[in-house]
């Protein structure tokens, strides 16, 4: 004798099936591995490009050779690493510059240094060399007077401008940006892949007609909720694996330090993934129920995927330009865009608490709305096989 099946049990049964079948598929394992590899490569690339901006190989030739230790030391003070290479033959040095083996070749007497670069001398190196040359000139000029050049220079060196920071933003801006970008990217991928997987699952049930047997035992909303929940969890598991690998890789390469920003960014990412997923997956499921063939799925989903793409492009631009304009704030609280924008804004420290609260409340409202409307469309359309069901008919009937 069968026992009574409660609605929640029905939803969990459906979710459990999705979880079971999807986690075991080869495509899940492969896509997770590929994502992990891509992310690890991204982090490594990121850390090396961060470094590239602050590390130079400088060739010294002739009299300039004596400046080696001074260049390294003074460049270090402005956060620039310099590796010194002694070059015997300037012509050979020029060739190395051409071949990108050297960033710059410094020749000539210490009082009038000549720098050879391939296209452009980077600012840090220019400042360093200018400073050193001025110092050399100053030393030689001062030595002709009564004063002790060393003393004068020490006094001068000790003098520093006083800096007042009006809006201090911490010194981990680059890291915050990287976290924001990665989270936005992962969210975008997760919404696209798992949102569409929900639609495909709905179409699969419809095209294989198994939905009719299912609907004889569970209500449409239970089937819909179970599907969204199950695939949402599958996505979350993949998201968690990728994030964990990203964090480990980031920490190992030193591109990331385990700061409040990193943890906050990940937590915000998970939270907004869930909100974004429930919002978009319900819409995807409802739209999926309109068609009966897998080939028609893409065309019916395109308007929604466009919204996600626009949100993503906007989010990337915003993160890079570090903008806190009114438009950004308005976009960030709108349910379709909030899940993609808010994690980045949070990571950058641009989202005040009130903004986050408003975005979360509106998103909950948005989810409630799409759940109601999506459930209605799904219920009306899922048994109508054949040609594509018109959205208006599905909503109104």
């Amino acid at each position, binding site marked *: 004798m*069968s*026992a*009574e*099946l409660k609605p929640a049990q*029905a939803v969990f*049964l*459906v979710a459990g*099936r999705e979880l*079971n*079948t999807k986690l075991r598929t080869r495509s899940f394992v492969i896509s997770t591995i590929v994502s992990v590899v891509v992310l690890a490569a991204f982090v490594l690339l990121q850390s090396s490009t961060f470094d590239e901006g602050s590390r130079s190989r400088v060739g010294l030739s002739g009299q300039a050779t004596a400046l080696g230790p001074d260049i390294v030391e003074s460049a270090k003070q402005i956060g620039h690493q310099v590796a010194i290479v002694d070059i015997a033959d300037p012509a050979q040095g020029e060739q190395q510059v051409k071949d990108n083996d050297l960033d710059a070749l410094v020749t000539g007497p210490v009082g009038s240094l000549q720098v050879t670069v391939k296209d452009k001398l980077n600012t840090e190196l220019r400042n360093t060399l200018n400073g050193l040359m001025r110092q050399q000139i100053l030393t030689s000029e001062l030595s002709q007077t009564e004063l002790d050049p060393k003393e004068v220079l020490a006094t001068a060196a000790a003098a520093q401008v006083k800096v007042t920071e009006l809006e201090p933003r911490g010194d981990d801006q680059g890291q915050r940006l990287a976290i924001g970008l990665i989270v936005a990217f992962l969210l975008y991928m997760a919404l696209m892949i798992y949102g569409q997987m929900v639609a495909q699952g709905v179409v*699969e*049930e419809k095209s*294989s*007609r*198994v*939905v*009719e*047997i*299912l*609907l*004889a*035992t*569970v*209500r449409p909303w239970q089937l819909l909720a179970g599907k969204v929940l199950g695939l949402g969890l599958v996505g979350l598991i993949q998201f968690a694996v990728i994030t964990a690998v990203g964090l480990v890789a980031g920490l190992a390469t030193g591109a990331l330090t385990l700061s409040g920003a990193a943890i906050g960014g990940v937590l915000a990412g998970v939270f907004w993934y869930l909100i974004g997923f429930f919002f978009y997956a319900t819409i995807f499921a409802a739209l999926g129920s309109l068609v009966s063939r897998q080939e028609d799925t893409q065309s019916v989903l395109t308007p929604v995927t466009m919204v996600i793409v626009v949100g993503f492009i906007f989010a990337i631009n915003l993160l890079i330009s570090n903008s806190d304009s009114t438009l950004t704030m308005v976009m960030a609280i709108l349910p379709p865009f909030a899940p993609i924008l808010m994690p980045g804004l949070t990571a950058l420290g641009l989202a005040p608490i009130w903004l986050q609260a408003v975005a979360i409340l509106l998103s909950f409202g948005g989810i409630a709305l799409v759940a109601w409307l999506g459930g209605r469309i799904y219920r009306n359309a899922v*048994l109508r*096989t054949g040609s594509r069901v018109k959205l208006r008919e599905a909503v109104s009937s």
Partner: protein
Amino acid sequence: MVPEAGLEIDRVSKRYGDVVALSDMTFDVRPGELFGFVGSNGAGKTTTMRIALGVLEADSGAVRWAGEPTTLSSRRRFGYMPEERGLYPKMKVLDQLIYLAKLHGMPANDAHRAADDWIVRLGLRERRLDEVQKLSLGNQQRVQLAAALVHDPEVLVLDEPFSGLDPVAVDVMSQVLKEKSAAGIPVVFSSHQLDLVQRLCDRVGIVNKGRMVACDTVDALRSAGASELHVHAPAAPPGWAAGIAGVTVVSEQDGHTSLRVGDGVDDQVILRAALDTGPVHEFSRHRPSLADLFRDVVKEGR
């Protein structure tokens, strides 16, 4: 003992826009009864079954089981085979049956046991861990039947269970249906194979254009229908019987003549007319087959 109420379909109506799919569809299937549901395509059989299973909602009317209006939880005790066969193509046979049994409210252990039982009974043991899409069509049909039976249903509703079955599978299916009804379960199935319906069913309902036009035991339906007279008179010229009052010629070929005889017409008059043409080798009355009745019903409805 008075038989308790079975599955009752009570004045169920359904429209799709301007199209009337069902109007006042009414019949009942008693416990232990095998009920055949017959009608041409689009007559409303599938719509009726879908409404009985709660997959569709009726515009009006009621579906009752054991005297009570059906609910989601009472419908979970129904076994259903939809006309459009459907299973998850990429799910293994065993997993699929267990999942469906659980959806019908079976606890996990019972679901495993029942799925295993039916797999063995329907000869799918070697295929139990294969994906459904890798099975032959015949085996997929068996899984579909197992899916309808795995939760030990109290009512069976099968839409075209015999379509696409090979003769062996037809026997297996007939056997299972007979067993289930013998166990006291109301079984209703639709079919276009009228000889099968005639052989298997206790009662038959003929549907046309969303209405139940005839519903009775096969015997009663056949007796009530206009019988046919078959005459074999080799020497009879074509049209020999056309002039007899109250007689319609159904077919006439090589001295074999089939006649539809109206009520109150003396068949001896016809025999005499036949003898006038020469020798008569055969003169017999035939009760109409279910197929004949069905054809009549559809013709009348047109």
